[in-house]
């Protein structure tokens, strides 16, 4: 249904550790407003149940009935959203969502729990190129979560501690398993927790900047996914991009995060759902998904 001339749509993004939902009012194009969002950690529950609950929460917060939504778009683990209208792949939705959060975005760095993905987009959010980290988890949130657990640090404190580092300790730049061994050695050598965490952040940042370079990213890079909320991670990426600027001024990276970065996939899915609905409407095929 519509809110005046605007469509109400929802995007649901079940990830490895949390389900993110956004309810958006838009015209099917660039003019859009996020009405409500919800983030629900999965915490060993069934992801379908969590997705339904988060969706209901977001609808309630937006003051809309699910039946009023013109399109419910899933992204990420779409199988967890049986009531979806359609599904969009996460790189498409993160690209669109990042562009909504920062219209200057020309690349996206999506750092989730299990994978990191670099995505190059055009000014419409259309994906021009992408690459994902391989099976190795060393550039992802799960890796950082493991390290935090070894160090006995709450995940939410990791960023602030990393920012307080004075002499970051270098860790293995290749392998998460080796890096974990490095961390154990550092602890036994008395390296401070902030310096260890900063070293980890720098190690991940190095890998992620290489990922961005491999897809030809330049200009504004918007961070999305769970690690975009980690100020230590953001700082490490910015410092590395700044350090590169002197020798690669023409292709410099401008790393940006947004308070809603974690919701980029859900927002992008909702926006693409509205776009798709308009497309079906123009083709007289709305009943196709009724």
């Amino acid at each position, binding site marked *: 249904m519509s809110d005046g001339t605007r469509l109400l749509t929802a995007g649901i993004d079940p990830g490895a550790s949390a389900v993110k939902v956004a309810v958006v009012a838009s015209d099917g194009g660039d003019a859009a407003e996020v009405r409500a969002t919800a983030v629900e950690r999965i915490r060993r529950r069934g992801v379908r149940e969590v997705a*339904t609950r988060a969706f209901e929460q977001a609808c309630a917060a937006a003051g809309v009935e699910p*039946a009023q939504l*013109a399109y419910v778009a899933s992204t990420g683990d779409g199988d967890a959203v049986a*009531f979806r209208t*359609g599904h969009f792949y996460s790189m498409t939705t993160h690209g669109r969502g990042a562009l909504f959060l920062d219209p200057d975005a020309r690349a996206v760095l999506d750092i989730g729990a299990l994978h990191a993905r670099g995505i190059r987009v055009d000014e419409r959010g259309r994906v021009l190129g992408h690459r994902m980290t391989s099976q190795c988890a060393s550039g992802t949130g799960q890796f950082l979560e493991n390290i935090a657990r070894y160090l006995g640090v709450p995940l939410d404190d990791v960023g602030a501690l990393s920012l307080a580092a004075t002499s970051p300790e270098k860790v293995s730049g290749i392998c998460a398993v080796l890096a974990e061994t490095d961390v154990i050695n550092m602890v036994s050598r008395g390296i401070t927790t902030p310096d260890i965490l900063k070293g980890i952040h720098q190690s991940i940042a190095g890998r992620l900047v290489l990922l961005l370079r491999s897809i030809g990213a330049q200009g504004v890079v918007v961070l999305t996914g769970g690690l975009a909320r980690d100020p230590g991670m953001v700082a490490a990426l910015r410092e590395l991009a700044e350090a590169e600027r002197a020798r690669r001024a023409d292709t410099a990276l401008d790393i940006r995060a947004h308070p809603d970065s974690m919701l980029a996939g859900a927002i992008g899915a909702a926006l*693409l759902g509205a776009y798709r609905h308009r497309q079906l409407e123009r083709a*007289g095929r*709305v009943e196709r998904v009724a």
Partner: protein
Amino acid sequence: MTATPTPPLSPPPAAMADPAAGPLAEARRLVEDRSLDTVRAWKAAHPGALAIGHLPIYVPRPLLEAMDCLPVALFGGGDQVDIIRGDSYFQSYICHLPRSTVELALAGDLDALDGVLFPAICDVVRNLGGMWKLLFPDRYSSYLDLPQNLDPALGGRFYADELRRITRELVARGATPLAERALAAAIARENARRDALFALDALRRRQPWRVPASEAYLVARAGAALPAADHRALLQAYLNAALQRAVHRYDNVRVVVTGAFCEQPPLELIRTLELAGCDIVDDDFQLGWRYLEGPIPTGAGADGIEVLARAYLDLGTATASRYIGEEEKGAALVRRVRRAGAEGVIFAAASFCDPALLDQPMLEAALGAAGIPFTSLKFSENTGQLQVIREQAGAFSDAVKLWGSAA
């Protein structure tokens, strides 16, 4: 405003009580019967009758049934078999199917078979046939040379002679001598099975949300070791149940998948394509079931073997192992896409499958000229890491859905 969809909030009704659950469970049981227990049971119920295995793509199964043999389609070991010994018989740069077939045989999983036919697909299957003779010299095996000359006076005569040779060889091994009435009846049963399969395909094209390709694949594959009449009954049961389903319709992209006619992708790969937002509305998986594009003609007094030969010549589908004009294959693929109302094509070929991969550039050119988006991927029957395929299929599905192009 145009009427808009109203998504139900909780899981769709189809997930609650699926009337197709029974036929699907039976199909899964049959597909997972790696050691051919159903074949053993059939042989116990038919003392003295032969079970004859055959490799993809096409073997005239009614001929075997008419001689009271049970045709058993062999599709390799899939993703359930660790290849250990099979690898030592073949070079590394060929497809996976022959290795897993040898592995199954050496493990005794194919012992219920009294013989195996190796139809002409490619050099690799020809080599497998030769290897088989060396490994199992006491068991019946034969290479079935399918004609590439489609002139009835040449290829037709040659093929009919091939079928008569196999008939004689099977009779020598204990099969019932061929009788015209029995062959006509077997052809009629095969046509009935084919009708059920085509009805299933038609429903899948009309309402893919009612018949996911992954399920259609399973019920088709379940017929590998079933007589045609039993397979038809299973197909019909599934079809009836699918029609009764309460369904939830998704806004997916309609695609044709082509190239997996011989070595089969793991079921999870098909599921991955579906989860990426694709409705697979046509495919060439297990092509043998649909190799003939129409019913085998029957008529009073006709010579059954000549009928089978003529059906192969006249009704054979355009596929990589059939040497027909490149333009003809491209045009046939475009026709399939149009008939299915598909928006794009996914080329899914087994790694090192020369027939599929050599044809692909020509098929791509035909799709390009027709403005049909496509993408391509490769698999092997035991592909377990599907992330890259998921990524690629997801990107393709979104690009077609949102931008009407492949990128």
